[in-house]
Protein backbone atom coordinates (compact mmCIF):
# COMPACT_ATOMS: atom_id res chain seq x y z
CA UNK A 1 0.00 0.00 0.00
CA UNK A 2 1.43 3.37 -0.96
CA UNK A 3 2.17 5.91 1.81
CA UNK A 4 -0.62 8.19 0.59
CA UNK A 5 -3.19 5.42 0.72
CA UNK A 6 -2.10 4.32 4.17
CA UNK A 7 -2.32 7.93 5.38
CA UNK A 8 -5.84 8.21 3.98
CA UNK A 9 -6.94 5.00 5.58
CA UNK A 10 -5.43 5.86 8.93
CA UNK A 11 -7.80 8.85 9.17
CA UNK A 12 -10.63 6.86 7.64
CA UNK A 13 -10.94 5.17 11.02
CA UNK A 14 -13.78 7.05 12.76
CA UNK A 15 -12.16 6.53 16.16
CA UNK A 16 -8.90 8.16 15.06
CA UNK A 17 -10.80 10.98 13.37
CA UNK A 18 -12.92 11.67 16.46
CA UNK A 19 -9.90 11.63 18.79
CA UNK A 20 -8.10 14.07 16.49
CA UNK A 21 -10.92 16.48 15.63
CA UNK A 22 -13.15 16.68 18.71
CA UNK A 23 -10.65 18.57 20.91
CA UNK A 24 -10.16 21.15 18.12
CA UNK A 25 -13.86 22.01 17.82
CA UNK A 26 -14.17 24.31 20.84
CA UNK A 27 -11.03 26.42 20.12
CA UNK A 28 -11.96 26.64 16.43
CA UNK A 29 -15.50 27.71 17.25
CA UNK A 30 -14.28 30.30 19.76
CA UNK A 31 -11.83 31.84 17.29
CA UNK A 32 -14.47 31.98 14.57
CA UNK A 33 -17.02 33.65 16.88
CA UNK A 34 -14.43 36.25 17.96
CA UNK A 35 -13.41 36.96 14.35
CA UNK A 36 -17.01 37.14 13.21
CA UNK A 37 -18.15 39.41 16.04
CA UNK A 38 -15.21 41.79 15.48
CA UNK A 39 -15.72 41.82 11.71
CA UNK A 40 -19.50 42.23 11.83
CA UNK A 41 -19.55 44.94 14.51
CA UNK A 42 -16.75 46.81 12.75
CA UNK A 43 -18.39 46.40 9.34
CA UNK A 44 -21.99 47.06 10.33
CA UNK A 45 -21.44 49.87 12.84
CA UNK A 46 -18.05 51.56 12.41
CA UNK A 47 -16.78 51.21 8.85
CA UNK A 48 -17.58 54.18 6.58
CA UNK A 49 -20.49 54.17 4.15
CA UNK A 50 -19.72 54.05 0.43
CA UNK A 51 -19.84 57.36 -1.44
CA UNK A 52 -22.59 56.27 -3.84
CA UNK A 53 -24.18 53.13 -2.34
CA UNK A 54 -24.44 54.73 1.11
CA UNK A 55 -25.30 52.29 3.91
CA UNK A 56 -26.31 49.57 1.45
CA UNK A 57 -22.64 48.71 1.08
CA UNK A 58 -22.84 46.88 4.43
CA UNK A 59 -24.74 44.02 2.75
CA UNK A 60 -21.32 43.16 1.29
CA UNK A 61 -20.10 41.94 4.72
CA UNK A 62 -22.55 39.02 4.45
CA UNK A 63 -22.81 38.67 0.67
CA UNK A 64 -19.12 38.28 -0.19
CA UNK A 65 -18.29 35.73 2.57
CA UNK A 66 -21.38 33.72 1.56
CA UNK A 67 -20.34 33.70 -2.10
CA UNK A 68 -16.86 32.57 -1.08
CA UNK A 69 -18.24 29.90 1.28
CA UNK A 70 -20.62 28.55 -1.34
CA UNK A 71 -17.70 28.10 -3.76
CA UNK A 72 -15.31 26.74 -1.12
CA UNK A 73 -17.87 24.23 0.18
CA UNK A 74 -18.45 23.02 -3.37
CA UNK A 75 -14.71 22.45 -3.85
CA UNK A 76 -14.77 20.42 -0.62
CA UNK A 77 -17.81 18.51 -1.89
CA UNK A 78 -16.07 17.66 -5.18
CA UNK A 79 -12.90 16.59 -3.33
CA UNK A 80 -15.05 14.31 -1.18
CA UNK A 81 -16.56 12.93 -4.39
CA UNK A 82 -13.11 12.15 -5.80
CA UNK A 83 -11.94 10.57 -2.52
CA UNK A 84 -15.10 8.50 -2.46
CA UNK A 85 -15.04 7.32 -6.09
CA UNK A 86 -11.30 6.72 -6.46
CA UNK A 87 -10.17 5.67 -3.00
CA UNK A 88 -13.52 4.53 -1.56
CA UNK A 89 -12.74 6.65 1.49
CA UNK A 90 -15.49 5.92 4.04
CA UNK A 91 -15.31 9.33 5.75
CA UNK A 92 -15.61 11.20 2.43
CA UNK A 93 -19.24 10.19 1.95
CA UNK A 94 -20.15 11.08 5.54
CA UNK A 95 -18.44 14.47 5.04
CA UNK A 96 -20.28 15.08 1.75
CA UNK A 97 -23.62 14.53 3.52
CA UNK A 98 -22.68 17.15 6.13
CA UNK A 99 -21.10 19.74 3.77
CA UNK A 100 -24.06 19.89 1.35
CA UNK A 101 -26.63 21.73 3.49
CA UNK A 102 -24.06 24.26 4.72
CA UNK A 103 -22.92 25.12 1.20
CA UNK A 104 -26.54 25.24 0.09
CA UNK A 105 -27.43 27.70 2.86
CA UNK A 106 -24.40 29.84 1.93
CA UNK A 107 -25.36 29.98 -1.76
CA UNK A 108 -28.99 30.78 -0.87
CA UNK A 109 -27.89 33.61 1.44
CA UNK A 110 -25.53 34.87 -1.26
CA UNK A 111 -28.41 35.04 -3.76
CA UNK A 112 -30.84 36.64 -1.28
CA UNK A 113 -28.42 39.30 -0.01
CA UNK A 114 -27.33 40.02 -3.58
CA UNK A 115 -30.94 40.49 -4.59
CA UNK A 116 -31.58 42.82 -1.63
CA UNK A 117 -28.55 44.87 -2.69
CA UNK A 118 -29.48 44.81 -6.36
CA UNK A 119 -32.90 46.41 -5.99
CA UNK A 120 -31.71 49.76 -4.56
CA UNK A 121 -28.39 49.82 -6.46
CA UNK A 122 -29.12 48.40 -9.91
CA UNK A 123 -32.85 48.97 -9.86
CA UNK A 124 -33.78 45.29 -10.17
CA UNK A 125 -34.03 42.25 -7.90
CA UNK A 126 -32.69 39.87 -10.49
CA UNK A 127 -31.16 39.79 -13.97
CA UNK A 128 -30.08 36.80 -16.02
CA UNK A 129 -26.46 37.83 -16.37
CA UNK A 130 -23.65 35.27 -16.35
CA UNK A 131 -22.56 35.76 -12.72
CA UNK A 132 -26.04 35.59 -11.21
CA UNK A 133 -27.14 32.68 -13.37
CA UNK A 134 -24.04 30.58 -12.67
CA UNK A 135 -24.50 31.19 -8.92
CA UNK A 136 -28.13 30.07 -9.19
CA UNK A 137 -26.92 26.90 -10.96
CA UNK A 138 -24.54 26.27 -8.03
CA UNK A 139 -27.51 26.57 -5.65
CA UNK A 140 -29.44 24.02 -7.74
CA UNK A 141 -26.39 21.71 -7.78
CA UNK A 142 -26.40 21.81 -3.97
CA UNK A 143 -30.12 21.04 -3.86
CA UNK A 144 -29.55 18.14 -6.26
CA UNK A 145 -26.66 16.80 -4.22
CA UNK A 146 -28.59 17.01 -0.94
CA UNK A 147 -31.49 15.14 -2.51
CA UNK A 148 -29.53 12.47 -4.40
CA UNK A 149 -27.27 11.48 -1.51
CA UNK A 150 -30.36 10.68 0.59
CA UNK A 151 -32.60 9.36 -2.18
CA UNK A 152 -31.61 5.67 -2.28
CA UNK A 153 -32.45 2.89 0.16
CA UNK A 154 -29.01 1.50 -0.64
CA UNK A 155 -26.92 4.37 0.74
CA UNK A 156 -23.86 3.28 -1.29
CA UNK A 157 -25.70 3.92 -4.58
CA UNK A 158 -26.86 7.34 -3.44
CA UNK A 159 -23.39 8.31 -2.35
CA UNK A 160 -21.90 7.18 -5.66
CA UNK A 161 -24.45 9.18 -7.69
CA UNK A 162 -23.93 12.23 -5.45
CA UNK A 163 -20.15 11.96 -5.84
CA UNK A 164 -20.49 11.97 -9.64
CA UNK A 165 -22.86 14.97 -9.44
CA UNK A 166 -20.42 16.85 -7.20
CA UNK A 167 -17.50 16.20 -9.57
CA UNK A 168 -19.48 17.12 -12.69
CA UNK A 169 -20.70 20.33 -11.05
CA UNK A 170 -17.15 21.56 -10.52
CA UNK A 171 -17.18 23.04 -14.06
CA UNK A 172 -19.56 25.70 -12.71
CA UNK A 173 -16.95 27.13 -10.33
CA UNK A 174 -14.56 28.65 -12.92
CA UNK A 175 -17.63 29.98 -14.74
CA UNK A 176 -18.79 31.76 -11.55
CA UNK A 177 -15.31 33.10 -10.85
CA UNK A 178 -14.44 34.33 -14.34
CA UNK A 179 -17.92 35.22 -15.65
CA UNK A 180 -17.32 38.89 -14.84
CA UNK A 181 -14.10 38.87 -16.88
CA UNK A 182 -15.11 36.70 -19.83
CA UNK A 183 -18.40 38.41 -20.63
CA UNK A 184 -19.81 41.81 -19.82
CA UNK A 185 -22.21 41.41 -16.93
CA UNK A 186 -24.33 43.67 -14.75
CA UNK A 187 -22.45 42.32 -11.74
CA UNK A 188 -19.26 44.27 -11.01
CA UNK A 189 -15.83 42.60 -11.44
CA UNK A 190 -13.82 41.50 -8.39
CA UNK A 191 -12.45 44.34 -6.25
CA UNK A 192 -9.77 42.19 -4.65
CA UNK A 193 -7.36 40.14 -6.74
CA UNK A 194 -3.98 38.53 -6.21
CA UNK A 195 -2.21 40.62 -8.82
CA UNK A 196 -3.63 44.16 -8.61
CA UNK A 197 -4.18 46.80 -5.93
CA UNK A 198 -7.60 46.33 -4.34
CA UNK A 199 -10.11 48.86 -5.69
CA UNK A 200 -11.87 48.78 -2.34
CA UNK A 201 -10.80 51.20 0.36
CA UNK A 202 -8.87 49.53 3.20
CA UNK A 203 -11.37 50.89 5.75
CA UNK A 204 -14.02 48.75 4.03
CA UNK A 205 -11.73 45.83 3.23
CA UNK A 206 -10.45 44.93 6.71
CA UNK A 207 -13.87 44.22 8.21
CA UNK A 208 -14.65 42.22 5.06
CA UNK A 209 -11.50 40.13 5.51
CA UNK A 210 -12.38 39.50 9.19
CA UNK A 211 -15.96 38.50 8.30
CA UNK A 212 -14.74 36.16 5.56
CA UNK A 213 -12.23 34.54 7.90
CA UNK A 214 -14.83 34.22 10.66
CA UNK A 215 -17.48 32.70 8.41
CA UNK A 216 -14.93 30.29 6.89
CA UNK A 217 -13.66 29.04 10.26
CA UNK A 218 -17.25 28.89 11.48
CA UNK A 219 -18.25 26.73 8.52
CA UNK A 220 -15.25 24.42 9.08
CA UNK A 221 -16.27 24.06 12.74
CA UNK A 222 -19.88 23.42 11.79
CA UNK A 223 -19.04 20.75 9.20
CA UNK A 224 -16.68 18.95 11.56
CA UNK A 225 -19.15 19.12 14.45
CA UNK A 226 -21.85 17.63 12.24
CA UNK A 227 -19.41 14.98 11.04
CA UNK A 228 -18.43 14.04 14.62
CA UNK A 229 -22.09 13.90 15.62
CA UNK A 230 -22.96 11.68 12.68
CA UNK A 231 -20.03 9.30 13.41
CA UNK A 232 -21.01 9.06 17.07
CA UNK A 233 -24.64 8.49 16.09
CA UNK A 234 -23.49 5.57 13.96
CA UNK A 235 -21.44 4.17 16.83
CA UNK A 236 -24.43 4.42 19.15
CA UNK A 237 -26.63 2.62 16.61
CA UNK A 238 -23.98 -0.07 16.19
CA UNK A 239 -23.64 -0.72 19.91
CA UNK A 240 -27.37 -0.59 20.62
CA UNK A 241 -28.00 -3.12 17.82
CA UNK A 242 -25.26 -5.39 19.22
CA UNK A 243 -26.74 -5.07 22.70
CA UNK A 244 -30.09 -6.55 21.62
Amino acid at each position, binding site marked *: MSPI*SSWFHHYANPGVFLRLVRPCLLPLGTISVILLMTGLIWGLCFS*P*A*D*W*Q*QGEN*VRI*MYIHVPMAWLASACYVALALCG*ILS*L*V*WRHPLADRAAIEIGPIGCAASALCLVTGSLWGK*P*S*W*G*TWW*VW*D*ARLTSMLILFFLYLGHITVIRAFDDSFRGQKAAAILA*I*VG*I*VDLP*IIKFSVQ*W*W*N*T*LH*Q*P*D*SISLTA*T*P*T*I*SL*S*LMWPLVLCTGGFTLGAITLVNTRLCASLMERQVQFFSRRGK
Partner: protein
Amino acid sequence: MSRSPLLKPSRKTTRLWILCASLLCLGSATFLVLNAFSSNIVFFMAPSQLRDHPPHPSRVVRLGGMVVAGSLHHHPNTPDTTFDVTDGQVAITVHYTGILPDLFREGQSVVAVGELQTDQSFKAQEVLAKHDETYMPKEVADALKRSGKWDPRFGPPPDAASWNRMTATSHDQHP
Protein backbone atom coordinates in the same frame (compact mmCIF):
# COMPACT_ATOMS: atom_id res chain seq x y z
CA MET B 1 -0.44 -14.65 -19.09
CA SER B 2 -0.15 -12.27 -16.17
CA ARG B 3 1.80 -9.03 -16.23
CA SER B 4 4.31 -8.07 -13.59
CA PRO B 5 2.57 -6.55 -10.51
CA LEU B 6 4.65 -3.39 -10.90
CA LEU B 7 3.29 -2.71 -14.39
CA LYS B 8 -0.27 -3.58 -13.66
CA PRO B 9 -2.10 -0.45 -12.50
CA SER B 10 -4.14 -0.87 -9.36
CA ARG B 11 -7.88 -0.39 -9.53
CA LYS B 12 -7.50 2.93 -7.72
CA THR B 13 -5.08 4.21 -10.36
CA THR B 14 -7.42 3.09 -13.13
CA ARG B 15 -10.35 4.87 -11.49
CA LEU B 16 -8.24 8.00 -11.08
CA TRP B 17 -7.32 7.99 -14.79
CA ILE B 18 -10.93 7.44 -15.85
CA LEU B 19 -11.93 10.36 -13.63
CA CYS B 20 -9.22 12.64 -15.06
CA ALA B 21 -10.20 11.73 -18.64
CA SER B 22 -13.90 12.36 -17.90
CA LEU B 23 -13.15 15.72 -16.30
CA LEU B 24 -11.00 16.70 -19.29
CA CYS B 25 -13.79 15.81 -21.72
CA LEU B 26 -16.39 17.60 -19.60
CA GLY B 27 -14.19 20.69 -19.33
CA SER B 28 -13.61 20.81 -23.08
CA ALA B 29 -17.29 20.31 -23.80
CA THR B 30 -18.22 23.15 -21.46
CA PHE B 31 -15.59 25.38 -22.99
CA LEU B 32 -16.87 24.71 -26.52
CA VAL B 33 -20.50 25.30 -25.53
CA LEU B 34 -19.71 28.58 -23.73
CA ASN B 35 -17.52 29.68 -26.62
CA ALA B 36 -20.30 28.98 -29.12
CA PHE B 37 -22.88 30.84 -27.06
CA SER B 38 -20.61 33.69 -25.94
CA SER B 39 -22.51 36.27 -27.97
CA ASN B 40 -25.73 35.22 -26.17
CA ILE B 41 -24.13 35.22 -22.73
CA VAL B 42 -22.99 38.85 -22.86
CA PHE B 43 -25.44 40.90 -20.88
CA PHE B 44 -25.37 44.07 -22.99
CA MET B 45 -24.09 45.55 -26.26
CA ALA B 46 -21.96 48.67 -26.49
CA PRO B 47 -23.28 51.62 -28.57
CA SER B 48 -20.65 51.01 -31.29
CA GLN B 49 -21.64 47.32 -31.52
CA LEU B 50 -25.26 48.33 -31.80
CA ARG B 51 -24.43 50.85 -34.53
CA ASP B 52 -22.32 48.33 -36.48
CA HIS B 53 -24.74 45.44 -36.14
CA PRO B 54 -28.19 47.00 -35.84
CA PRO B 55 -30.67 44.47 -34.42
CA HIS B 56 -33.97 43.72 -36.04
CA PRO B 57 -36.37 46.60 -35.30
CA SER B 58 -38.73 45.88 -32.39
CA ARG B 59 -36.27 43.32 -31.03
CA VAL B 60 -35.52 44.07 -27.38
CA VAL B 61 -31.79 44.54 -26.75
CA ARG B 62 -29.71 45.73 -23.83
CA LEU B 63 -27.53 48.77 -24.42
CA GLY B 64 -24.66 49.31 -22.00
CA GLY B 65 -22.31 52.25 -21.59
CA MET B 66 -21.53 55.42 -19.69
CA VAL B 67 -23.99 58.30 -19.31
CA VAL B 68 -22.40 61.31 -21.05
CA ALA B 69 -21.77 64.27 -18.75
CA GLY B 70 -24.23 67.09 -19.40
CA SER B 71 -26.56 64.96 -21.53
CA LEU B 72 -29.12 64.12 -18.82
CA HIS B 73 -32.39 66.04 -19.22
CA HIS B 74 -35.42 65.61 -17.01
CA HIS B 75 -38.51 66.86 -18.79
CA PRO B 76 -40.36 69.11 -16.33
CA ASN B 77 -43.49 67.71 -14.68
CA THR B 78 -43.17 64.33 -16.44
CA PRO B 79 -41.27 61.16 -15.59
CA ASP B 80 -39.57 61.39 -19.00
CA THR B 81 -35.79 61.58 -19.17
CA THR B 82 -33.31 61.76 -22.03
CA PHE B 83 -29.63 60.97 -21.80
CA ASP B 84 -26.76 59.85 -24.04
CA VAL B 85 -24.96 56.53 -23.53
CA THR B 86 -21.44 56.16 -24.91
CA ASP B 87 -18.61 53.64 -25.08
CA GLY B 88 -16.12 56.32 -26.04
CA GLN B 89 -16.69 55.83 -29.77
CA VAL B 90 -20.39 56.24 -30.45
CA ALA B 91 -23.09 57.92 -28.36
CA ILE B 92 -26.74 56.86 -28.55
CA THR B 93 -29.56 59.00 -27.17
CA VAL B 94 -31.85 57.10 -24.82
CA HIS B 95 -35.46 58.07 -24.04
CA TYR B 96 -36.89 56.64 -20.86
CA THR B 97 -40.13 57.08 -18.96
CA GLY B 98 -40.02 55.94 -15.34
CA ILE B 99 -38.06 56.04 -12.12
CA LEU B 100 -34.28 55.86 -12.46
CA PRO B 101 -32.31 53.71 -9.96
CA ASP B 102 -30.52 55.41 -7.06
CA LEU B 103 -27.08 54.90 -8.55
CA PHE B 104 -28.03 56.54 -11.84
CA ARG B 105 -26.00 59.70 -12.53
CA GLU B 106 -23.89 61.26 -15.26
CA GLY B 107 -20.63 59.33 -15.60
CA GLN B 108 -22.20 56.12 -14.30
CA SER B 109 -22.28 52.93 -16.35
CA VAL B 110 -25.86 51.94 -17.10
CA VAL B 111 -27.72 49.22 -18.97
CA ALA B 112 -30.84 50.28 -20.85
CA VAL B 113 -33.30 47.59 -21.95
CA GLY B 114 -35.38 48.54 -24.98
CA GLU B 115 -35.52 48.96 -28.74
CA LEU B 116 -33.39 50.85 -31.22
CA GLN B 117 -35.62 53.27 -33.13
CA THR B 118 -35.39 54.04 -36.85
CA ASP B 119 -33.91 57.47 -36.04
CA GLN B 120 -31.01 55.66 -34.25
CA SER B 121 -32.27 56.76 -30.84
CA PHE B 122 -33.04 54.17 -28.19
CA LYS B 123 -36.39 53.78 -26.43
CA ALA B 124 -35.79 52.15 -23.03
CA GLN B 125 -38.39 50.19 -21.09
CA GLU B 126 -36.06 49.70 -18.16
CA VAL B 127 -32.83 51.36 -17.02
CA LEU B 128 -30.40 49.59 -14.69
CA ALA B 129 -27.42 51.26 -13.03
CA LYS B 130 -24.19 49.28 -13.10
CA HIS B 131 -21.89 49.55 -10.10
CA ASP B 132 -18.16 49.28 -10.76
CA GLU B 133 -15.65 47.45 -8.59
CA THR B 134 -14.63 50.63 -6.71
CA TYR B 135 -15.72 50.89 -3.09
CA MET B 136 -14.62 54.06 -1.35
CA PRO B 137 -15.81 56.06 1.66
CA LYS B 138 -17.54 59.37 1.08
CA GLU B 139 -14.59 61.28 2.59
CA VAL B 140 -12.16 59.85 0.03
CA ALA B 141 -14.51 60.63 -2.85
CA ASP B 142 -15.03 64.18 -1.55
CA ALA B 143 -11.28 64.69 -1.14
CA LEU B 144 -10.60 63.44 -4.67
CA LYS B 145 -13.30 65.72 -6.06
CA ARG B 146 -12.09 68.69 -4.00
CA SER B 147 -8.50 68.25 -5.17
CA GLY B 148 -9.71 68.33 -8.76
CA LYS B 149 -8.18 64.90 -9.43
CA TRP B 150 -11.48 63.32 -10.34
CA ASP B 151 -14.89 64.38 -11.55
CA PRO B 152 -17.42 61.53 -11.24
CA ARG B 153 -19.31 62.89 -14.25
CA PHE B 154 -16.43 61.96 -16.56
CA GLY B 155 -15.84 58.37 -15.65
CA PRO B 156 -14.48 55.95 -13.06
CA PRO B 157 -12.21 57.14 -10.23
CA PRO B 158 -8.39 57.02 -10.49
CA ASP B 159 -6.35 53.97 -9.52
CA ALA B 160 -6.88 53.01 -5.88
CA ALA B 161 -3.12 52.92 -5.22
CA SER B 162 -3.00 56.68 -5.79
CA TRP B 163 -5.91 57.63 -3.47
CA ASN B 164 -3.77 58.38 -0.42
CA ARG B 165 -1.28 60.46 -2.38
CA MET B 166 -4.02 62.39 -4.19
CA THR B 167 -6.13 63.08 -1.12
CA ALA B 168 -2.98 64.10 0.84
CA THR B 169 -2.04 66.75 -1.74
CA SER B 170 -5.58 68.05 -1.68
CA HIS B 171 -5.19 69.02 1.98
CA ASP B 172 -2.01 70.93 1.18
CA GLN B 173 -3.79 72.91 -1.48
CA HIS B 174 -6.98 73.51 0.51
CA PRO B 175 -6.03 73.91 4.15
